[in-house]
């Protein structure tokens, strides 16, 4: 079969382990940018150490928190001490009298709806003086009745969070009577009430900004944000400036996980302070304030009833789902989440409380239903004496999930490692078990980024885009895609990102950054290469379409070549500048994953140790294998925290959160870490797709199932702490007539 007319083969040098050889590759210029054959990549899809790694390990990387400017003042916020109150009086005179305190803002008369709702703010010469000023402010509150937990909020006579009440119900789905009738005919029916707490993002760099405004018509804002471009408009509005006069800079940012979008509370208060004194303001939340006003993953209350045929086919489900997003609506996908059930009746509502509003958090609305559905599915499997993988396969049609279930099963050693029945394993106080579950996410990219590639006659190559790097490796794949296009080492390309002047870009949310940005970078690099070849071709006495760039050289079809430097020198003084935009076909959407866990439960102490976590994940074209593995591990670790250690603890009586710090809000640490097996599903040959979100979806359910398999205890309320294991063991012993 003849090649398509747009394709041709060309010989180029290739360097492997320092040895150069000539290989033939296929190029396809006229069809526009395409990723081409993955086997030909020298950078993309390899294990690439991140290009900003040296800056991050030496302390050179400048985060928003690190920005220092002449005349900088340090801001701080006084959060409400009550979940529901009105500011009756506020006396800031003592704070204003403190030396070094330059600005005080008081929100007199404000209705406060959650602990953390800002009451006042200050700016002072040093962080310590700002803290002094906050402590010197005297507030008298008119304390009002509060509600901070779902049971109270749902009860008759509860205090109203909003005038419209505490419950915002959606239309029920399905036929209640038909579903009940179907359940009555099922061979096996299980039910359970599942609760998940609010999880806190706990980004290591807190929310905040440094706003450089000194009066006048322009400002620069440094922000710890997931959306560099989005902050510009917000800031312009807050400072009363034209949008074109505001620049946002996000060189590095210390984690977001969904919580950092827009100017946000600290940003808008910093702008108010800056306007007041016409001086730059540094306002980064304290850790405690971050817990109180930085958002959360909404909690959930889910009551599920699930029935199946004798061979495990899911026939009927009744699902009562409550989203617990505090003042926000919360987020929760519909049950039965990723499985197929023939007949479903479902109710869904948001239950409001006097607590900080929920925000997007890595796979919003997914870990909650995943935990409940994966759990109840294994209860059903146990009742039917089925293998959990078999019952999943009986209710999934997606071939990717079916394939990945086998991959995860093999990696964890399911066939021999799993107890045939929950708790049927080894004798002795320590019991091991395995669990498995599935995930998925849409993601995908769209036309939002504008990328510029510049090649200067001295040989320098730069690529610029407004996008930010949350720690996902954006800067690295941006450089890699351009370097790949020109056959250069990654070091030869400088990636400038995180600056609103560099071009439009989307905010990082929904795993869309890579799928939106990478195609635009590829397009810009492709356009730059075509323009570059047109300019360089005469120097090689060749036609532009006969050139190729590889291993640091520009080569013509007849074997003549120039080094990169020589080729750039032929630009005769004028740089090549090319732009690029998102192109269809370079990205895709829809990812799938499967995770499996092995745990050990100490039945004497109730302590759970996760021994191994396996994560199988597809992501189309993996731009940087090392970074994908880092994200896959990271997603599982956040899921492990969700399963075993994390959760906002809010006291019903006082209405206050009790664990606004890292001692009592327990992030998983080194001692909780299992062995990890991150597996990139290379069967997926599509374009670029983000994968940060699905990596954290199934982990909690998978661990809960492994615990069930280990010791026969089903814990339906996260986090699964030792007391819940011991209570479950005691209940099981009692149910089986006291035989432990």
């Amino acid at each position, binding site marked *: 079969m003849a090649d398509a007319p747009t394709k041709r083969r060309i010989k180029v040098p290739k360097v492997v382990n320092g040895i150069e050889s000539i290989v033939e590759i296929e190029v396809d210029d006229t069809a526009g940018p395409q990723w081409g054959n993955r086997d030909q990549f020298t950078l993309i899809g390899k294990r690439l150490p991140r290009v900003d790694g040296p800056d991050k390990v030496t302390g050179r990387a400048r985060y928003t928190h690190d920005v220092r400017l002449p005349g900088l003042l340090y801001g701080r916020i006084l959060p409400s001490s009550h979940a529901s109150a009105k500011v009756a009086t506020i006396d800031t005179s003592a704070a204003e009298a403190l030396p070094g305190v330059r600005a005080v803002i008081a929100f007199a008369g404000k209705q406060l709806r959650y602990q953390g709702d800002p009451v006042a703010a200050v700016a002072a010469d040093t962080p310590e003086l700002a803290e002094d000023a906050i402590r010197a402010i005297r507030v008298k509150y008119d304390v009002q009745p509060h509600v901070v937990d779902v049971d109270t909020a749902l009860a008759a006579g509860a205090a109203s969070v909003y005038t419209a009440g505490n419950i915002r119900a959606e239309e029920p789905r399905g036929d209640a009577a038909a579903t009940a009738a179907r359940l009555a005919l099922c061979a096996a029916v299980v039910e359970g009430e599942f609760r998940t707490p609010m999880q806190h993002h706990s980004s290591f*760099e807190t929310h905040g900004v440094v706003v450089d405004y000194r009066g006048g018509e322009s400002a620069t804002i440094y922000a710890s944000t997931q959306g560099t471009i989005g902050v510009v408009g917000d800031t312009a509005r807050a400072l009363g400036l034209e949008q074109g006069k505001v620049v946002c800079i996000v060189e590095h940012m210390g984690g977001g996980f969904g919580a950092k979008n827009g100017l946000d509370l600290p940003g808008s208060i910093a702008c108010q302070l800056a306007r007041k004194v016409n001086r730059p303001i540094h306002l980064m939340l304290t850790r405690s304030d971050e817990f109180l006003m930085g958002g959360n993953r909404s909690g959930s209350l889910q009551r599920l009833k699930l029935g199946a045929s004798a061979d495990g086919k899911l026939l009927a489900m009744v699902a009562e789902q409550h989203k617990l997003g505090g003042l926000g609506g919360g987020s929760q996908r519909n049950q039965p989440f990723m499985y197929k059930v023939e007949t479903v009746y479902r109710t869904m509502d948001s239950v409001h409380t006097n607590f900080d509003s929920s925000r997007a958090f890595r796979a919003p609305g997914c870990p909650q239903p995943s935990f409940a559905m994966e759990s109840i599915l294994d209860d059903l499997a146990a009742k039917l004496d089925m293998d959990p993988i078999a019952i999943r396969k009986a209710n999934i049609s997606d071939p990717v999930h079916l394939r990945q279930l086998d991959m995860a099963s093999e990696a964890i050693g399911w066939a021999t490692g799993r107890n045939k029945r929950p708790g049927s394993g080894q004798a002795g106080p320590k019991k091991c078990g395995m669990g498995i579950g599935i995930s998925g996410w849409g993601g995908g990219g769209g036309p939002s980024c504008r990328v510029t590639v510049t090649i200067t006659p001295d040989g320098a190559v730069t690529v610029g885009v407004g996008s930010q790097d949350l720690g996902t490796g954006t800067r690295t794949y941006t450089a890699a895609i351009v370097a790949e296009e020109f056959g250069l080492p990654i070091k030869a390309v400088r990636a400038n990102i995180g600056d609103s002047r560099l071009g439009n870009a989307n905010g990082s949310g929904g795993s869309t950054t890579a799928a939106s940005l990478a195609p635009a970078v590829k397009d810009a690099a492709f356009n730059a290469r075509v323009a570059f070849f047109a300019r360089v071709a005469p120097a090689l006495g060749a036609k532009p379409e006969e050139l190729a760039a590889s291993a640091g050289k520009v080569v013509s079809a007849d074997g003549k070549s120039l080094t990169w430097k020589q080729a750039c020198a032929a630009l005769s003084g004028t740089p090549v500048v090319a732009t690029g935009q998102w192109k269809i076909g370079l990205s895709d959407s829809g990812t799938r994953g499967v995770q499996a866990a092995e745990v050990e439960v100490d039945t004497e102490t109730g302590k759970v140790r996760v021994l191994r976590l396996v994560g199988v994940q597809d992501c189309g074209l993996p731009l940087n294998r090392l970074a994908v593995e880092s994200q896959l591990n990271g997603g*599982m670790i956040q899921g492990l925290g969700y399963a075993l250690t994390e959760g906002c603890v809010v006291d019903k009586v006082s209405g206050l959160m009790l664990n606004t710090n890292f001692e009592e809000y327990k992030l998983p640490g080194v001692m909780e870490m299992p062995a990890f097996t991150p597996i990139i599903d290379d069967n997926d040959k599509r374009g670029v797709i983000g994968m940060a979100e699905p990596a954290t979806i199934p982990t909690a359910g998978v661990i809960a199932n492994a615990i069930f398999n280990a010791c026969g205890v089903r814990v339906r309320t996260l986090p699964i702490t030792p007391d819940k294991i011991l209570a479950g063991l005691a209940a099981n012993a009692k149910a089986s007539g006291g035989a432990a």
Partner: protein
Amino acid sequence: MSADSHNDPNTEPVDRRLSRRAFLRGAGAAGAASALVAAAVDSADHAGAASPEPRRDDSRAAVHKGEINLTLTINGKPRLVTVEPRTTLLNALRYYLDPPLTGTKVACDRGTCGACTVLLDGKPVYGCMILAADAVGRSVTTIEGLSPDGENLHPVQAAFVEHDALQCGFCTPGFVLTVTSVLNANPQATVDEIKHGCAGNLCRCGSYPHIYEAALSAGKTMAKKGAGNG
């Protein structure tokens, strides 16, 4: 509902949260004072800078008086810094040194997460839990001092980059210094020993598995070089 008596302006300040560090700051006043005497630090007590607001406890009121000039030994060099006695080493590095050293990160500011880890006489300590005055006469190594020229990375830094032992990077300086200290003591440290050594550092992005890989790899490099003096 009635007014909240806890926040009656005549009784006490609104912010009654007592953090572990706030307690130590108060308790540290005596310690700091004695450290100052011992080190013969130049005390520049500006009476005008005293807080006009009487504090609830006297030790804290004492802390608020004036500024002190300290000479700290940071990354092998004497650095002059003017701080209040209550200023932590972390804040002295980040806010008071000129130019500041911002590689030492602040994440919890109360001795839990390890993002502010520095080496004090070679041992990892939380910069937020030590008063700057208490570091006088001791050797402070920050992340900026591990590879002074910034080009030739320390084996631990190089291994962190190579193994992608970081994502957002905010916990990274603390982890690098902690791992360096563990490997300085024993370049052949096992994974369990490395974990034990890092038990006081947290990472939210979840880079732990790559951190162990990096530490093991760096240990091999350091053992080969017979370094151990990082």
